[in-house]
């Protein structure tokens, strides 16, 4: 017996791990589940490990103090050997982890894998998704830059909308009356101890159940899941046409995990670490806070909700959504697994995915926000005022100086909060323009109080020139009639 074998035996005799490990790695899985579709769960686990390792390495330097956090990130980014790389790996690892977890969930949903007897595996998975998102949000707070500061403000403002206990929840979230050092300390505890602790426990349970219950068989149209027959059928499937998990299925997991890790590393090297953006000095108000990628959809939804619906939506929709996800395997625990026979489920998934995609896309360019410096940075296209009269030119000056440009674009630049004005003269008559400018309405502020009559006249004259060549200006039909009536008289 070789020395290595003796050493192994010495440990094995005391640890007694060989039996359970062999059971776990050699358990038979249905042959067709050794598929590239079944690699996302293991990739998510790999990314979780990456996050833990890089997170611990960052904790060697990071200081969870409101006064020091930003500077310690600066030190990591700029002064420590490979500090920037670890921050980038952790940041990109979190992006990949959210993405892979979501893909894993879509795959499980599409393959009907949440059905009997894997209901609890799914329910735990829902909590693990929530905790992954919780990690993403708390991690963004630990960056403790301007985005983190104002992101906390948004979090507190959402909390404050809860009836009765809103104020208490804000105090709890912030750890005091304002966003400050105490806030960062508690988010550090959440991000480093509480959420990862529970997440690890849930991950272990999740994987335990996957091993004990067996990986979901490839869905076949017509192979119906029934509580009283499924276990028997699955047992036959794995024993008649099964392969051992190691090595038949595992090698694909290994390849995919390595590819994902490599992709994280490439992103980290190419794109670098996330921020930190400006120092968390709240008196720097010239800032445009924006959440990280995975919360952009929420940012967009919050912009589009009408004011009256906002509080009910923010407070009720997430609860309903989570309840629906939790209830799914309990309500649909039997029946068809194949996507060929579950049109409603697939349509639902596509609808949700497309909605998230659209809101996220909108979140990347925020058409609902005024562009705060458009009035001073985007010039009026010279060709628009080339042949303009002095009054019209003065109107263009008023247009810029009164920040109209922050919400309205002309010539393709400027805000998108209000309609583009390139053809406003085609849409609105002079009277309508004056009314709109002075009284506002339709989500536009009224300018009646801060425009003098000459400014208003000049501005409207300028706006009347804004129409594509060859298009006729808007006309007031009643005035035309009046003119026609009056015409023959003199």
């Amino acid at each position, binding site marked *: 017996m070789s020395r290595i074998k003796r050493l192994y035996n010495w440990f094995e005799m005391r640890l007694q791990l060989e039996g359970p490990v062999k059971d776990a790695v050699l358990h038979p899985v249905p042959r067709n589940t050794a598929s590239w579709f079944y690699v996302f769960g293991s990739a998510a686990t790999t990314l979780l490990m990456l996050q833990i390792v890089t997170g611990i390495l960052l904790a060697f330097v990071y200081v969870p103090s409101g006064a020091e956090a930003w500077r310690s990130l600066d030190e990591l980014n700029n002064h420590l050997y490979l500090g920037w790389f670890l921050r980038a790996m952790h940041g990109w690892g979190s992006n990949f982890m959210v993405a892979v977890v979501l893909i894993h969930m879509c795959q499980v949903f599409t393959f009907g894998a949440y059905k009997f007897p894997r209901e609890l595996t799914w329910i735990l998975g829902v909590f693990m998704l929530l905790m992954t998102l919780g990690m993403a949000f708390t991690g963004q707070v630990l960056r403790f830059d301007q985005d983190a500061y104002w992101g906390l403000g948004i979090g507190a403002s959402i909390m404050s909308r809860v009836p009765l206990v809103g*104020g208490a929840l804000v105090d709890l979230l912030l750890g005091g009356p304002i966003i400050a050092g105490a806030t960062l300390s508690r988010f550090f505890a959440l991000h480093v101890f509480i959420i990862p602790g529970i997440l690890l426990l849930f991950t272990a349970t999740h994987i335990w159940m996957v091993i004990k219950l067996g990986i979901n068989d490839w869905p076949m149209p017509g192979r119906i899941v029934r509580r009283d027959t499924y276990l028997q059928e699955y047992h036959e499937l794995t024993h008649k046409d099964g392969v051992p998990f190691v090595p038949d299925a595992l090698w694909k997991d290994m390849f995919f995990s390595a590819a994902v890790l490599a992709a994280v590393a490439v992103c980290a090297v190419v794109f670098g670490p996330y921020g930190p953006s400006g120092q968390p000095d709240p008196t720097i108000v010239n800032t445009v806070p924006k959440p990280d990628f995975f919360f952009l959809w929420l940012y967009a939804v919050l912009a589009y909700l009408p*004011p009256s619906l906002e509080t009910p939506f923010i407070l009720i929709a997430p609860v309903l959504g989570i309840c629906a996800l939790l209830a799914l395997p309990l309500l649909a625990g039997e029946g068809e697994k194949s996507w060929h026979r579950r049109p409603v489920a697939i349509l639902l998934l596509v609808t949700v995915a497309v909605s998230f995609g659209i809101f996220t896309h909108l979140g990347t360019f925020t058409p609902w*926000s005024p562009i705060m410096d458009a009035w001073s940075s985007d010039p009026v296209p010279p060709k628009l005022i080339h042949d303009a009269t002095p009054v019209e030119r003065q109107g263009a000056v008023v247009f810029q100086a009164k920040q109209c440009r922050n919400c309205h674009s002309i010539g393709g630049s400027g805000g998108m909060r209000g309609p583009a004005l390139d053809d406003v003269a085609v849409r609105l008559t002079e009277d309508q323009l004056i009314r709109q400018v002075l009284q506002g309405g339709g989500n536009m502020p009224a300018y009646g109080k801060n425009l003098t009559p000459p400014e208003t006249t000049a501005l409207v004259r300028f706006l009347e020139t804004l129409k594509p060549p060859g298009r006729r200006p808007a006309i007031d039909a009643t005035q035309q009639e009046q003119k026609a009536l009056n015409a023959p008289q003199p």
Partner: protein
Amino acid sequence: MSEEKPVSRRWLLVAVGTAFNGIVAAAVAVPVIGYLLSPIKKKSAYLKWISLGKLDQFPEGQTRLASFENPFERPQDGETAKTPCWVRRLSAEQFQVFAINCAHLGCPVRWFPQSELFMCPCHGGVYYADGARASGPPERGLFTYDYKVVNGELHINAGQMPTLADQAKLVTIAGKGKSPCLG
């Protein structure tokens, strides 16, 4: 013998041991709930009169950015102990002090003196010079601080981040006739 008894002596001891553990754990843990909930305080406990400085830095008819150190500052707060606010001076003794936080979701509103509007960079909330809602998603006007003039200095009652949960000290937008829309 013992297996015939409904509760064996050992199981009784286990039950008593469990109860004992439970009692000790509850006795230790229940007060700790108070530790966890300690940030929750009455609003008055988080408010204090603070000076924004001499009156002459706020010219009449103008709106200026001011800032103050949070009265409950701790060393680890760093820069976040500072809070900005917008001060509008209407006349010698008349002021409006607006919170920096948009009434929608708390982002920092910015004052544009040319168009006399506050605009929010996050979701496009806009307010008039008097803090009344002009457009966008906010449900109400800007939050305001109570103020008083003491020895030629402007003092405000502040210390807590204003949110919708914090209604008592807030102005409502309806029916004051201040907004150009209404008046």
